[in-house]
C-alpha cells in the first residue's frame, strides 16, 4: 500500500531542475576550459560558462531569499541521529528490500545523510566555487582590492577542486535518486512535488 505526500513546492522544483541543468552545463564548459576536451571551442566554452555562472547567481539570489522567507533552510540543519541507520540501509537493507528508514515529510524532506551532503555542498563546495569563480572573472582587479598577493594558480586550483567535488556529488546524487520506494519515485517527486512513500 503506497500513499503520496506533497514534498517539493513549485519554486523548489524549478530551482532544483534549473540548478541541475546549469551545474551540468558549467561542468561541461568548465572542464573544457581546463583543457579536458574540445567541444565548444575555448572561446564559446568560456563565454557560455560565464553566462551560465551569472544565471546561476541570479537563481541563487532567489533561492536564498526563498529559503529564508519560507524557513526551508532548516531542512539542512545537520543531525548525526540515524546516520548509521542510513549507512546500514544503503549497504545492506536496500538489497533485502527493507523499507527506507527515513520517512519523508514536508517538514523533513531529506534523510540525515542527505542533510550532511547538501549542507557540505551549500556551505563548503558552493562558496569555494563562487568565491574563486568571481575572483577569476575579475583577476585584473585584485590589485585594487588589496589582493595583489593572491596567486592566480591557487585560486584556479581551488575552483577546480570544488568543480571536481560537484562532479562527484552529481554522480552519486543521480544514482541515489533511484533508491526511493520505486526507482523513479524520487525523480517523480522532484517533477510533480508528490513523493510515493511506503
Amino acid at each position, binding site marked *: 500500500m503506497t500513499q503520496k505526500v506533497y514534498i517539493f513546492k513549485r519554486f523548489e522544483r524549478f530551482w532544483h531542475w534549473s540548478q541541475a541543468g546549469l551545474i551540468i552545463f558549467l561542468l561541461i564548459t568548465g572542464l573544457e*576550459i*581546463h*583543457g*579536458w576536451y*574540445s567541444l565548444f*571551442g*575555448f*572561446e564559446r566554452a*568560456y*563565454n557560455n560558462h*560565464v553566462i551560465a555562472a551569472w544565471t546561476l547567481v541570479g537563481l541563487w539570489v532567489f533561492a536564498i531569499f526563498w529559503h529564508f522567507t519560507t524557513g526551508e533552510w532548516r531542512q539542512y540543519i545537520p543531525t548525526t541521529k540515524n546516520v548509521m541507520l542510513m549507512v546500514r540501509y*544503503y549497504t545492506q537493507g*536496500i*538489497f*533485502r*528490500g527493507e523499507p527506507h528508514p527515513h520517512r519523508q515529510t514536508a517538514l523533513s524532506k531529506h534523510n540525515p545523510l542527505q542533510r550532511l551532503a547538501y549542507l557540505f555542498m551549500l556551505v563548503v563546495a558552493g562558496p569555494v566555487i563562487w568565491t574563486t569563480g568571481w575572483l*577569476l572573472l575579475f*583577476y*585584473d582587479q585584485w590589485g585594487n582590492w588589496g589582493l595583489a598577493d593572491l*596567486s*592566480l*594558480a591557487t585560486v*584556479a*586550483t581551488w575552483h*577546480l*577542486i570544488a568543480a*571536481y567535488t560537484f*562532479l*562527484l556529488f552529481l*554522480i*552519486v546524487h543521480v*544514482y541515489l535518486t*533511484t533508491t526511493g520506494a520505486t526507482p523513479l519515485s524520487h525523480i517523480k517527486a522532484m517533477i510533480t512535488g508528490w513523493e510515493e512513500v511506503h
Partner: protein
Amino acid sequence: MDPALAESERARTTADHSKFKELQQDFLSGPEVTRACLSCHTEAAKQVMHTLHWKWETINPKNQQRLGKRHVVNNFCTSVGSNLHACATCHVGYAAMTDKGLIEEPERVDCLVCHATVSYSKPTGLGGNVVAKDVELPPGSGNVIRGQNLRKIAQSVGKTSRRSCGTCHFMGGGGDGVKHGDLDSSLEDPDRKLDVHMDVEGLNFTCATCHQTDGHRVPGSRYTPTAADKDGPMIRGKGSERNPATCQSCHGQTPHKGRNAGKLNDHTVKLACQTCHVPAYARGGIATKLSWDWSTAGRRDAKGKQFVVKDKDGNKIYESRKGSFTFGENVKPQYMWLNGEVIYTLPGDKVDKSAEPIYINRYLGSPDDGRSRIWPVKVFHGNQPYDPVNKTLVVTHLAGADDTAYWTNLDWHKAIETGMRTAGLPFSGQVDFIRTLSVWPITHMVAPKEDALACAECHSRDGRLAKVEGVYIPGRDHIPLLDQTAKWLAILALAGVLVHAGIRVYAHIARKRSH
C-alpha cells in the same frame, strides 16, 4: 601611390618644391642638394645630426651600454666596423660615416633618402654617396651605376613614405625582409590582411603616422623599447616624453569593444597588443631569414669560384661568402616577457662557449616586475665566428676590394684581423664558431581584428604560450596529480554506483524468485 591620393597629398601641402628657384639646377652631388635644402630649412641638418639615424649610436639609459650600429655586433653580417663603404649606404649621410668617426658636416646629411617621393637610389660601396652621372663601379668591372637625376628628385621632396623608410628598414640584414620579419617591401602597398593600419585601400598609414616625428627625432627604438605603455590615448596639450608609436598611445588600455570586450581588455595587463594582433610575421609573401650559419661559408665550386644555392622559391640557402641560411614565411613568433630592458653582448665582452647559444641581445622581463608584458619576438639563430682564445665575438671585414675582405678572399683569419684592428680590439689569430641568438620584437604587420589570435591559440596544452613561465593560463596549466585523482574518483564513483545498482537488481530478482 595612387594618383588620386597623390593629388590629395599635393592639395594639402602649401609648398610645391618644383617651383623653388633654389632647386632649378642640375646638382652634381648629394651635398649640393643638401646645401640648397638648408638655405631654407636652416635647422634641419642640425636636427638630423642629433638623431640615431645620423649617429648610429645610443647610450642605453638603463645600463649605460653604448649601442647603435656603430657598436653592436649582430648575427647577420655581424658588424659595420670596417665595412662602412657598404653598410653606410643606409646611413642618412653622404659618406659621412667613416672608420675614424662621423664627419659632422651639415651638407653631408642626405635629405633625399627620406624625403624623395620619386625613385632615389644609392649604390652600395660608396658609403652612402649618390652618383649624379653614370659610373663604372668598381672601375673596370663593367658594372655601371646609373646616375640619379638629382634635380628631379630634389624637386619631388615631400613627407616620408612607407617606401622611403623601407629603402633601408625593409632591407635590414642585406636584403628584403631578411632581418626583422615584420618589415619588408610587401608593406609598401599592403592590403588590409597584411597591415590593418597601412592598408592602401583603407587607413593608408605611413610609418610616420605612428612614429610621429618631431624635429627629425623619430620615436620608437628596439634598443630601448617601450614594453608596457600603461597610459591612455595621447591627448593634445598633454605634452610628454611618451613614445607615440605604441598601440596604447592611440587605443588606450581598454581597446576592445563589443563581445568579450571585458575579458579581452583584462588581458592587457599581461600581454602586449602585438601578441594577439600580429599572429605571424613575414606574411606579405617575402621570406625572412631564420638562421645564418657562417661556419659553412668558404666553399668553392670545381672551378674554384664562389657559388650560390637557391631553394625552389628562389631564396639563397647557401652562399660561399656568407654560409647557410634557413627562411620562413608566415612564421609564428616566439613569446617572452619583456620589460623594455635589453642587454647586448658587445664586441670585447667575454662569451662562454659552454653557455651556447649566446644572446646577442637579451631581453629582460618577468611576470612579477609590474612593467613586463608577454611579447611576440623573432628569435634569429646564428653560428658566427669568434675568438676562442680571447673568448669574444669578432668584428669581421666582409666587404671591400682589398685583399683582406672575406667576401673577396674567403679567408677568415685576414678578415677578422682587419675587422678587429678597425674596432681597436685584440685578436688571438684563432677562429672558431659559436652559436648565437638575437631577438627582434614583432610589432608591425598588425592583422585585422578577425585575424587576431583565437583564445585556444594560447589557452590549450601546447599553445603558443606553452613555454612562457610565471603566469597561470587556463587551459594550459594543470596539476596532473589533481586531474588524475579527480578522474579516477569519478570513475570509481561511477563504477561504485553501477555495482551497487547491479547488486540491487540481482537481489530484487532473487527475492522475487524465492516468493
